[in-house]
Each structure stands twice: as C-alpha cells, then as structure tokens.
C-alpha cells in the first residue's frame, strides 16, 4: 500500500544549506521511539514516516498522534510552574485558614483563569451540595424568603467583569520593615478579575420587600466559620450581585460554590462566599472580621471602621521580581491597574524612581472596578533603573506613594495598602523589590 503521508516537496530553503540534519537535535533512534505510539496504525498499513531521511525539519509532535479529547481541559504540562503560592497562618490548627495568591507576573490580559483566582478562606472550602443549599433572606423585610439554587438559576441574570481584592493585598510591602524579595503575585496577588454572572441582589430584596428602618444587611456564608459581614443597604441595592457563574462556568468551590455575594470594588472579605443568609438590619452587626481584622488603625490609637471601597492602585507585572532582563534594548513595561471607585483613566510609568513620568497606553475595554492592562514600550539602556506605575481613576483619585500612604496609618498597616510598587532593575538585569 502506498504511504499516504508522503509529502512531495522541494528542498527547504529554511534548512541551513549543507547541514540539513542538525537543525533539530533529535536523531532517528529517538524519532522511532517516539513513534511507538502509532504502532497500531502502522500495523494497519500506515507506517511512520522517516522525515529525517527526507530532509525535513519537523518536531516530533508533528509525527505522533495527539492526545484525544477530554471532558475538561487542563493547561500544558509545560506551564506546571504557574501556580498560586499558598500560605496559612496556623497550619497545625486550621490548615484551611489562609490564602493563595494569583501569580500576576505569569499572566497576561486582565481575566484571571478560574484555577488561579486568589483564595482567602477562614476554615477551608466547604463541600456544598447545591441540591441541599438554600439562601434565606429575612430580617427587616415584609416576607422572609428561601431560595433554592434551582430557583435562583431561573432568575434573569446579568454579567459584569470586575476585580475582587482582599483587604490584606499588598500587606507584605507595609508590614515588613525590609522589602520582601518575592514575586509581584506573592505581594499583590490577592486580586483577581473575572466575568461574574448572577442575579442582582436588589431584585431579590425587592421581592422580599425592604422594611423602613433597614439600612444594612448581614451576609453569612455556609463555611465552617459561617463567615459573616455587614454591608450598607445602599450598596446591596446598587450593584451587588448574587453570583452563580465565574468566567462562564459555575463558581469554583473556592470561590463560593454554589452561590456568593459579589460587591464590585469593595474589600473582598465582604463578598461573602457560600452565601446562605442575608438579614436586613438596622445598623451593622459588628461581626468579628469587621471589627478585629479589617479595621485600619490610625495614629493616636483609634481605628477606622470601615474601609469598604478599595483605593486606586496599579502594579507593574513585567518586568518584576523573579525575572531577569535579557539585555538592553526594547522592552515592554506592562501591568495592571484598578480602582474600587470606577474606571482607570490614566497610568503613568516612571523608570527613574518617580522623578519623571510617561503615560502608558491603556488596553481596552477599560471597565469600571475591573483590572485594566497598561503597556509602555521602553528602551532599556542597560543601566540601573527604578520602575514604578501610578494609576488615576475617573474620580480623580491618584495612587499614593508608599510613604504618603503609610503616614495615614499606624502600624502594622496591614490592610488596604494601595501605594506605588517600586522595582529596581540592576545593571546585570536582576530585579528587586525596593521601598522608595
């Protein structure tokens, strides 16, 4: 039988003249070994080709049958190092209490893959059967209501792209006296961005009928700490979403499956996952997290309560710590900017530690309360440089320097840090996290 895969071709001008066999360091023996997978096909009359003998320059995967279809796709094994760094506060006591961070430096665009969305749990991820999970809305309402997940799935929905950011994001740059030499993601990766789809909370609250006197809600999760937060009713009626889907698929368990609250632009802890209960109240409930944790101590001994809306912020993700400049020449400085107040309107980039600034290009679409990608071409001359980015939002808020931000708070200044990140590029191309 004639070989069906024979390729009639002219000598390839792409192969270096006079040395056609050395353009790939794969010898014939390797080739044959890798072709073992097609032995069955060969037995049926289809024989593995001898590309080398024909002078072809082709990689082995062009001569081996590929992996078949599968029910759920996975990243390439060559991307196995792109992972969320995880940390727990009390590994022996509560291994599920902690966080994992989005590896911002390894990603591009603005949408975070679902498997790399940051996590912050207080006692692990609950394993919730959606057939048994229900959402109760009660308190200062005309009619307390219980919604099954099947019922919520029948509601008209809306989608919006927005970031979720933990209050503790970027804390490593303010609680540590010396700048930690870790990646952009390890410092700032408690932020991720997704397209969330679900039912506007206002719609469900209207069905229950809000009573006069209600001015806050209490949102509670069905995890093993029954995580709970108070939210002003104005936010609940504005853009709060009862989210069921994340980037098109049902929420991941670590993002609140089967249902979470989503409060665009506000500190992530309030977007209560595994949502089981919403109680309309008069005044905040003063839950543990909104008093003991996410309040901001200020000079003099008092603490701000609350900081809901997240400040205007940006970070350069490339070049950044962990990378090495491959040499002088044209490079792209790129990163992410976002604000809890709305759209990003401008990102300036400095390569001299803030002495001079140049406006970066914003990649569209620029959405409110969403990660925005900025880019600036940069001709690196090979000498020491201090690179920074500074974001401005549509309300005119300007990202502060680290020093200006710190001046407003008392130690440890652990939460809500949105100050400028500085990376130092040395002449040898290595990159360090520095405080300026």
């Amino acid at each position, binding site marked *: 039988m004639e070989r069906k895969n024979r390729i009639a071709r002219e000598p390839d001008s792409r192969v270096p003249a006079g040395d056609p066999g050395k353009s790939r360091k794969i010898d014939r023996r390797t080739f044959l070994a890798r072709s073992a997978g097609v032995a069955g096909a060969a037995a049926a009359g289809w024989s593995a080709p001898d590309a080398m003998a024909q002078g072809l320059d082709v990689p082995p995967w062009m001569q081996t049958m590929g992996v078949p279809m599968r029910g759920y796709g996975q990243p390439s094994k060559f991307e196995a190092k792109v992972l969320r760094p995880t940390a727990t506060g*009390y590994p*022996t*006591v*509560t291994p599920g209490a902690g966080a994992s961070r989005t590896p911002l430096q390894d990603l591009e665009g603005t949408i975070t893959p679902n498997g790399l969305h940051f996590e912050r749990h207080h*006692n692990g991820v609950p394993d919730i059967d959606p057939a048994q999970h229900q959402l*109760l809305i*009660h308190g200062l309402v*005309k009619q*307390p*209501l*219980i*919604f099954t997940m099947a*019922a*919520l799935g*029948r*509601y*008209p929905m*809306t989608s*919006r*792209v*927005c970031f979720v950011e933990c209050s503790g994001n970027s804390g490593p740059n303010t609680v540590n006296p010396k700048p930690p030499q870790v990646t952009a993601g390890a410092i700032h990766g408690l932020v991720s961005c997704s397209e969330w789809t679900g*039912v*506007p909370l*206002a*719609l*469900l609250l*209207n*069905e*229950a*009928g809000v009573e*006069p006197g209600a001015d806050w809600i209490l949102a509670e999760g069905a995890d*093993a*700490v*029954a995580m*709970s937060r108070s939210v*002003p009713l104005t936010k609940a009626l504005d853009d709060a979403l009862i989210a069921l889907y994340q980037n098109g698929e049902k929420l991941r368990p670590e993002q609140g499956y089967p249902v979470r609250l989503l409060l665009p632009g506000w500190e992530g802890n309030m977007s209560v996952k595994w949502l*089981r209960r919403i*109680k309309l*109240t008069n*005044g*905040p*409930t*003063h*839950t*543990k997290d909104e*008093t*003991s944790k996410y*309040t901001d*101590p200020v000079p*003099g*001994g*008092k*603490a*701000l*309560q*609350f900081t*809901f809306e997240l400040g205007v912020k940006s970070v350069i993700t490339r070049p950044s710590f962990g990378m090495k400049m491959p040499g002088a020449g044209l490079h792209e400085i790129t990163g992410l900017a976002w604000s809890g107040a709305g759209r990003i309107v401008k990102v300036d980039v400095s390569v001299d530690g803030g002495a001079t600034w140049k406006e970066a290009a914003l990649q569209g679409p620029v*959405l*409110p309360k*969403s990660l925005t990608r900025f880019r600036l071409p940069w001709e690196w001359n090979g000498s020491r440089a201090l690179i920074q980015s500074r974001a401005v939002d549509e309300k005119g808020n300007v990202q502060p320097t680290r020093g200006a931000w710190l001046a407003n708070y008392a130690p440890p200044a652990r939460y809500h840090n949105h100050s400028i990140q500085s990376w130092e590029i040395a002449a040898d191309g290595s990159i360090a996290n520095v405080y300026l």
Partner: protein
Amino acid sequence: MFTYRSMVAGAAAAVLAACVTTDSGSPAPTTGPRLGRAATPQEVAAWDISIPPSGAGLPAGSGTAKQGEDVYVAQCQACHGTKGAGKPADPLVGGVGSLATANPVRTVGSFWPYATTLFDYTRRAMPPTKPLSLSNDEVYAVTAYLLYLNGIIGETAEMNAKTLPQVKMPNRDGFIDMSRK
C-alpha cells in the same frame, strides 16, 4: 413601602431600563419570577445565628467565668494558650491600654468594641474542628471567662442574653465610623 403594585410599575420602568446597557455592558434585570418560598418563623429562628451589639437574638442560657474556665481548657487552650495568652493561634487576652502606645497589642480585650461579637464568633466558628458544637451555656461561660481574664467583668458575673450586651468593652469608643462618608 413596597407593594406588588409598585413592583409592576417598577417592571414597566425596567423594560425601558433594559434597553440601556450598564457600565459593564450587560443590562441588569430589575424584576424576577418570584420563586422564593415563604420562610416560616421557625425556619428563620433556626438559621439566624448573628448577634448584633443590641444582643437581639441571644439565646437562653447563661454562664460564669468560673464555669467557662473548664470549657476553655477543654476546647480552646490547645490553640489559644493558657489563660488566652495565645500561640499557636491569636492571643485573646491583654493589651488593654496599649493601643495608643508604640507597641499596641490588639486582642479581644483591648480592641473588640462589643462583647456580643465574642459570643457570636465563638458560637459560629469555634472550635475550628467542630464549629457550632458548643452549647449556649458553654458559649456564655467561655465568653465570660475571656471577659474576666481581660479584667472586664468579675469571676462570678453571669453572662446571659440580658447582661452580655450591657458589658462595656474598653475600646468601645476606639473606632472612627467611616461608613457614612
């Protein structure tokens, strides 16, 4: 006030509003199919575990610091240390008066503005290996014990639905309300 009539009117407005895309490019629906079922008072009572500063919703039961010490030693001490000193988990005692100093120590005693939060959180989340397993008497008692260790109440003071909300925490006035900015 909300009525069914106003909802119908709202629905008409929503039809118009649906023609307008929102900031994020997707129209937000404003009326739904009313698929929630009425929750009974019994169901609500069985689900509602949050306790605000007023103490509304605190269950029956009571406990003193003396009784709470046993609960603490059995349920809490392995993680929170002897007498709430901490390690490996957070310290629960100390720091009262330290917040304005160069070395502020923020604990339940020195920082938390309401004692009701201590009851609420202990009941819903502790111990982490078996949350919602303590009896209401045990939660009242261990709450009393921690308040006692912080010098906020006496060893024999009984904590119950009436007395707990009346406890004045040392840092009650230590917060600047930014919620209405």
